[in-house]
């Protein structure tokens, strides 16, 4: 009898209708939620574009091209190999330098977080490095290394390194040590306590710090490329400035923003959600 009820076409259709009716009831709620999620950012973007367009109308295309002109120039830049090469060069430098910063700054941060003497020794160094303006490093590395790929890498790494160092020290010191005591009571070795309990918390705390370091690294990379004229988005901007090509200058700014968003959404956000999902109530 149960079997005949399960395969009764009338019953199945009735259930499908019921389900459709449920969806129809939920539709306004879901639409409302989506509108609430997407609506405000869209309003923000529209406001920004409207202000940009208004400024363009006020000052003219020579001073500020319209958003549409900028999009067209960006598409032109990306239609040739040179545009992709510039974007790729800057992205590669930022990623490489950020990797170096994570290894050196993060490694020293881990050490300092656990060993008070090393923390005390490195604290003033970190503060001095953190206080140095990025522009000063661009000038210094130009003098030390000349206008080279290495100079830009060094500049990005030395600017973002202290941020990652301090972020890691804070992450180590801010972890919940009671969890490690709990693990110790079940016989966990120091290494097991570190990689099963402490590291998870440290990585979760480091996610936002890496995001900040990435954004800063991108800005420093473009500035250093602009000054040293080494291939990349910064060098393209320098060329656009020399040729008074404001469309191309803004197109390169747009490319820089696109590059940053690409790394943020393809690399940093997935990393953050993998390591820190448990910190969000809905994670």
């Amino acid at each position: 009898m149960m079997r005949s009820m399960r395969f009764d076409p009338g019953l199945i259709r009735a259930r499908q209708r019921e389900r459709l009716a449920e969806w129809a009831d939920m539709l306004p709620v879901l639409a409302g939620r989506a509108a609430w999620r997407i609506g405000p950012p869209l309003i923000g973007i529209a406001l920004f574009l409207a202000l940009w367009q208004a400024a363009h109308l006020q000052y003219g295309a020579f001073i500020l091209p319209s958003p549409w002109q900028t999009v067209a120039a960006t598409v032109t830049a990306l239609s040739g190999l040179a545009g992709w090469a510039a974007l790729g060069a800057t992205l590669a430098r930022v990623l490489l330098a950020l990797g170096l910063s994570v290894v050196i700054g993060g490694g020293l941060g881990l050490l300092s977080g656990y060993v008070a003497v090393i923390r005390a020794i490195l604290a003033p160094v970190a503060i001095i490095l953190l206080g140095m303006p990025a522009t000063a490093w661009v000038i210094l590395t130009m003098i030390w290394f000349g206008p080279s790929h290495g100079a830009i890498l060094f500049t990005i790494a030395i600017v973002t390194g202290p941020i990652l160092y301090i972020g890691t020290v804070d992450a180590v010191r801010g972890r919940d040590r009671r969890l490690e005591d709990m693990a110790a009571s079940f016989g966990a070795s120091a290494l097991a306590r570190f990689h099963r309990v402490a590291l998870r918390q440290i990585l979760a705390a480091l996610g936002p710090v890496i995001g900040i370091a990435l954004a800063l690294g991108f800005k420093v990379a473009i500035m250093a490329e602009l000054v040293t004229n080494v291939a990349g988005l910064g060098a393209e901007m320098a060329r656009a400035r020399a040729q008074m090509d404001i469309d191309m200058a803004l197109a390169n700014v747009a490319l820089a923003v696109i590059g940053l968003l690409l790394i943020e959404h393809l690399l940093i956000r997935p990393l953050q959600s993998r390591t820190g999902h448990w910190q969000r109530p809905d994670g």
Partner: protein
Amino acid sequence: MSGLTLATISHAFAGRRVLDTVSLVIRPGELVALVGPSGSGKSTLAAIAGGVLKPDRGRIMRRYARHGMVFQQARLLPWADARDNIGFPLQLAGMGAERIAARVQAAAEAVALRPDDLSKRPDALSGGMRARVAIARALVVEPDFLVFDEPFAALDPALRRRMQDLVLSLSGARGFGGLFITHDLFEAARLAHRIAVLDRQGRGITGSLTPPGAPGTRSEATIFGFVEKTRDDPLLRDLVNVDERALPLEGACDISGFRRCC
């Protein structure tokens, strides 16, 4: 059978002596409640008994194969669901996934956790459920000795009573011995075979009290009568009358952990 001997244990934090030549013998199968005022070093002694801390001086003789520990505030891994939290000690021991799943299932059933609770993270569990997960995590190693460090202090009275009943039924069924840290005389009289009293400055065990009958068989009237009678006992003078303002500032308990707590 399980038993534990702590012999002339001394321990200091940052030069301040918290425990000074404390000795305590817990006989096989015996559940001993350790009471003492705040700042007397109860949690430090629990940490030493549980293997979290190594004492500066003294000897620990464990006559059991495995112990489990239940902490004040459940100390669950916030990123792991209840199932993984219960199985955590077994993962540390490198046990295979299938055996872990079976043991977790058995431990969860022992503390009456529902299957749908097992997939919830700690932030989605109530205080009582978190306490049950913490107890299940201690049971999953199949311990023959359990250390409880004020595990129910943060729970409301009704929930605390339910958790005490759970401990009573588990200890009755499994026959494990243990050390139960508490500052609640009623809780101690309800759960323990014997109540040991720690000196207010951690200078040894000042004495022991034995409530009539065995844990789980005492009536409420018996427990109430025992507590009322022992309140006047000179042994418990500090527990009942200690003014925490009279304690040295560094003796004030910090709940952030053993190394930072007495």
